[in-house]
Structure formats: structure tokens, C-alpha cells
């Protein structure tokens, strides 16, 4: 057995030497330059999925209700990120958090979450159902691994167990499904966070295919309302793709459920999620 291993090792070394020789003969040289982010060290972005937006739900998406709310904190120097999922039914300062988008707009929602979390939100970005669908399709789908099957006629979610690539329509169903999950709103929000991580992975796949990355950024930009300046978009993308998938921490917030009047609400228990970000403990 030992001899076989030694022989295998020698063969591998020979193959490596031969490969190196060939590369030298061809004079192959590569240059891969991607400058570091030169803005602030910590960046906090609020991501919002609105329930309004044409064609299915005409109206201003910035005045809809927020069906998906996620805070993404990035440590630009250490190239790490944390995604915090906030259930839409969370009861914050006397109202469901999803209503703040319709009553105060994205800036107002950001201020409420700043007060709640103690974080300073630098930017926000919002999309609609159709926007999410188009973005996922432009990425050629996103890979998701499901520990158990999922079915919900209302959202259209019908997925078997295991790894699969979701197209835009399927990704939308996956992120909207609540009734087919044992933990309801918590589970739905957690799945949205998983979708975000998967989308980040797809964006990172294109980090050295620069024409594809440019086209993808165009699609993301066309399907998002944001206060990130258009001229800064590529720099944000450079920062995003420089973060390894394994350095993204996903924190689905937990809590309890209750009733306020006739409405079912979530009482959040953020634990140390926001304190960690405030203390600079971002990512894994």
C-alpha cells in the first residue's frame, strides 16, 4: 500500500513538473487586479422586497409593504459579511415592521431599524416580485439545497428534497412560502436569507468574467430602487465578489409569536446579532 502511495506521489510530481514546463514554454502570464474597497470600513445595507410593483401588482414599490427585510453588514477590510433576517411580521415600536415601508418609505423604514438595532444604515435597495424574478433569471438561476420537501399552493412552492437550481419564478415561490413551513414567518425569512447567500455566490462566480459581471450588474440595477449612486455600483460589486461565500454569516432572528388585536405578530429576540455587528464582529 505504501509503495502504491509513493508511486502515485511520484507520478503526481512528474505531472506537475510537466505541466509547469508546458506553461513556461507557452509563456503564459496572468494579471488579475481587483482593487480593494476604499470607502468606509463597515458598510450596512438594508435590502427590501416590496409587495408592490408592475406588472402583477401595479403601484410604487417604495410605498408597498415590505415582504422581505434583511440587513447586510460588510466588513470591507476583512472581507466578511453578516446577513440578518428580520421577519416581516416583527412588532417594532408599536407596528408591524413591514408597514413602515408604506407609511414612511424606505428611508423611514431604515430609520426605524436604525433605532431598533443601533446600527447606522448606509444604503437601502428595494425590489419587487417581478424584479426578483428577473434578477434570478439573469443569474441563470440560483442553487439551493433543501433539507426537506416544500409545498404551498398559495405561493406556488413545490420542491423536493435536495440540491436544485431555482429559476426566477421558483425563487419567488421559495421566498414567499410561509404556510408550507412549520415555523411560518421565521422559516420564510430564513429562506429569503438563504436565497441572498446563494445569489451572492452566483455573483461571485462571475468575478473574473468581467463582461458577464457588467451585464449582471445592469440587470440588478434595472430591477432595484436604491440610494446607492449609479457610479458607485461597480465598486460595490467589486467589494461583494471579493467576499468568499464561506465568510458570509447568516443570522435568522428568532422570537415568539403573539396577537395584537386581530393581527398575528412576531416578538423579536435579536440576541447578540446587532451587538456583534456594532462591535465589529462581522462574518464567520
Amino acid at each position, binding site marked *: 500500500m505504501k509503495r502504491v502511495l509513493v508511486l502515485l506521489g511520484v507520478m503526481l510530481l512528474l505531472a506537475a513538473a510537466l*505541466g509547469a*514546463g*508546458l*506553461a*513556461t*514554454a*507557452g*509563456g*503564459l*502570464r*496572468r*494579471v*488579475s*487586479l*481587483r*482593487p*480593494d474597497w*476604499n470607502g468606509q470600513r463597515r458598510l450596512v445595507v438594508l435590502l427590501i422586497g416590496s409587495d408592490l*410593483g*408592475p*406588472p402583477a401588482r*401595479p403601484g*410604487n*414599490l417604495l410605498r408597498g409593504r415590505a415582504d422581505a427585510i434583511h440587513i447586510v453588514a460588510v466588513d470591507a477590510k476583512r472581507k466578511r459579511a453578516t446577513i440578518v433576517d428580520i421577519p416581516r411580521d416583527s412588532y417594532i415600536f408599536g407596528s408591524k415592521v413591514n408597514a413602515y415601508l408604506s407609511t414612511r418609505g424606505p428611508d423611514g423604514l431604515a430609520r426605524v431599524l436604525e433605532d431598533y438595532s443601533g446600527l447606522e444604515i448606509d444604503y437601502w435597495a428595494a*425590489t*419587487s416580485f*417581478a*424584479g426578483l424574478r*428577473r434578477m434570478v433569471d439573469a443569474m441563470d438561476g440560483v442553487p439551493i439545497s433543501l433539507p426537506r420537501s416544500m409545498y404551498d399552493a398559495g405561493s406556488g412552492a413545490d420542491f423536493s428534497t435536495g440540491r436544485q437550481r431555482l429559476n426566477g419564478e421558483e425563487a419567488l415561490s421559495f421566498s414567499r412560502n410561509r404556510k408550507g413551513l412549520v415555523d411560518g414567518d421565521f422559516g420564510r425569512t430564513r429562506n429569503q436569507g438563504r436565497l441572498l447567500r446563494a445569489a451572492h455566490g452566483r455573483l461571485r462566480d462571475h468575478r*473574473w*468574467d*468581467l*463582461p458577464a*459581471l*457588467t*451585464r449582471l*450588474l*445592469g440587470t440588478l*440595477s*434595472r*430591477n*432595484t*430602487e436604491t440610494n446607492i449612486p*449609479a*457610479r458607485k*455600483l*461597480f*465598486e460595490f460589486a*467589486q467589494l461583494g465578489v471579493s467576499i468568499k461565500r464561506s465568510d458570509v454569516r447568516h443570522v435568522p432572528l428568532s422570537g415568539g409569536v403573539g396577537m395584537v388585536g386581530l393581527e398575528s405578530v412576531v416578538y423579536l429576540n435579536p440576541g447578540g446579532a446587532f451587538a456583534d455587528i456594532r462591535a465589529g464582529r462581522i462574518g464567520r
Partner: protein
Amino acid sequence: MQITRVSDVPQANSVLRGNEPQSGGRIKRAVRKAARREVSRLQRYLNATFVEPRTRGTRAPLRALLSARARRLLGPRDLRALTLRGGPPIQGGRRTRARARVVVLHAGLRMTAVTVTYNAGFSLLRGGAPQRLRQQGSMVFLPRAGRWRADHVAVRLFRQRQPGNDRRDKGSS
């Protein structure tokens, strides 16, 4: 350098409000102008690095090509690939066929990123021996303090067989 294709990628998000992004004649002209401008910048760098007697083999042409942030990342290996520094001196050179495809990201009339994917060949005389080189890859040009410079670079340099044979060496493919 021949531009074989210019793709126009709008950032305007009017599609979210149910409208198509603007794509009028003025925008198309501005997109083509930006594409030509950055391809010219790339071509000037290629000529200065591989052909011009005064500047070839030096790192001077990189100043007009790369952003300050990108230049700070340059290591010896990058310099060898971008300027041929560290090898035999270039005694003579001429450009052979070069082609480029361009993707322009824009918010209306404001251009925000220009990505040039190119493939350029050169016939050089280095260290007394003729040599054919090909540089190919992509560069993203971004506006930096009012100047457009390449900020994100993914480029490869190949040495090809002797003149008269346009095929790549086996090891470099």
C-alpha cells in the same frame, strides 16, 4: 483595434415601474463614443508598451491605462505580463490583428462602466530573436476623479509560435 460589438446595458430602473429603459439616439451615440474612447485608450497602451521605441518595455504606459488603485496592486509578475519588464529588451515590434468587444453600463446619458474584452497580437524582436505575443482578456474602465481608467483587470499574455504560424503553443491554451 477593430471593435466587433458594442453592447448597451442600461441601469435605469424604469422597468420596475412598467416602462422600458430609455434607449434613444443620443444614448446610443454616447454609448458608442464611450466604447471608442476606452478602446483607443487600450490601443494607446498596447502600442506604447509593445511597439513605440521610446516607451516599449517600460511601465510608463500603465499610468494612462490603470487607476491608481489598480497600479498599487501591481506585482513583478503582473508587470511582466503587462509590460514585458524583466525579460530580454524589445528591439523592434509591430502590432498584428486586434479585436475588441465592449459592454457599456450607463445610467441614461451618464456612462458608469466600460468593459473591454480584447485580443491583440504582436510581432516583436526580443533579445535578437523574433517572437509573437498575444494579449487577451478584459478590463473594466471606471471614472476616477474625472478620468477614466482600468480598475478591474483579468488579462493573459501568451507567447506564440514563430512568425508564420498563428497557432498557440500547446501549453498556453
